[in-house]
């Protein structure tokens, strides 16, 4: 299941639905990204490229499944305005063994961070600013080359 949506979602509900949908998995890993309450931050605004986002994420999920033998992988990503503490996105990955489930989830996160067409803008008490891509995210992606 891949969803790019403005509506909030319940991470526990998704985790349970993901678990229930698996067969043969011994390991389930989830990652959830949350709007971190840094000093002065009011919230995030997330923009995306609707015609490209879903196909790009589908490609990443396909690559992760093939590379790590994942049994399944789900991605949910929100766009629009999010308040501090809200869940931005979630990845779930299942595999027979834990190593592949962890690696698959990390691989997906690295690709989503730097290759999915989404952009974050911070709304702060002192103004707004687009979030700069981090060198560390690009380096994190390189380790899968």
């Amino acid at each position, binding site marked *: 299941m891949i969803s790019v949506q403005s509506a909030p979602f319940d991470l526990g509900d998704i985790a349970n639905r993901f678990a229930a949908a698996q067969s043969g998995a011994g390991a389930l890993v989830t990652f959830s990204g949350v709007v971190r309450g840094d000093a002065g931050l009011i919230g995030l605004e997330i923009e995306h*490229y609707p015609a*490209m986002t879903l*196909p790009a994420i589908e490609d990443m999920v396909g690559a992760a499944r093939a590379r790590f033998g994942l049994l399944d992988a789900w991605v949910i*990503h929100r766009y629009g305005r999010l308040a501090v503490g809200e869940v931005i996105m979630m990845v779930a990955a299942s595999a027979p063994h834990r190593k592949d489930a962890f690696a698959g989830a990390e691989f997906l996160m690295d690709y989503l961070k730097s290759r999915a*067409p*989404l*952009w*974050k803008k911070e709304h702060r008490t002192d103004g707004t600013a687009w979030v700069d891509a981090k060198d560390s995210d690009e380096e994190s992606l390189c380790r899968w080359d």
Partner: protein
Amino acid sequence: MITVVYFAWLRERIGAGREQIETQAETVAQLVAELSAIDPYHAAAFADLRSVRVAVDQVLTDFDAPLAAAKEVAFFPPMTGG
């Protein structure tokens, strides 16, 4: 005729998310040169291409890519999803 779309600060700097362009450009780089000549806002948006990424028909590519029969070219900053 090609559709050019912009996201994030490129959209804000250019002042539009989408425009139709009549062009003979054969590569992305040639299209960028034409767009930069439109007005100072476009010129500013493309002033530093190290901060610009491009997708042709919704697939990430680079500035050397041919446009061929492309219908939609998108310009945007490095992605910050996740």
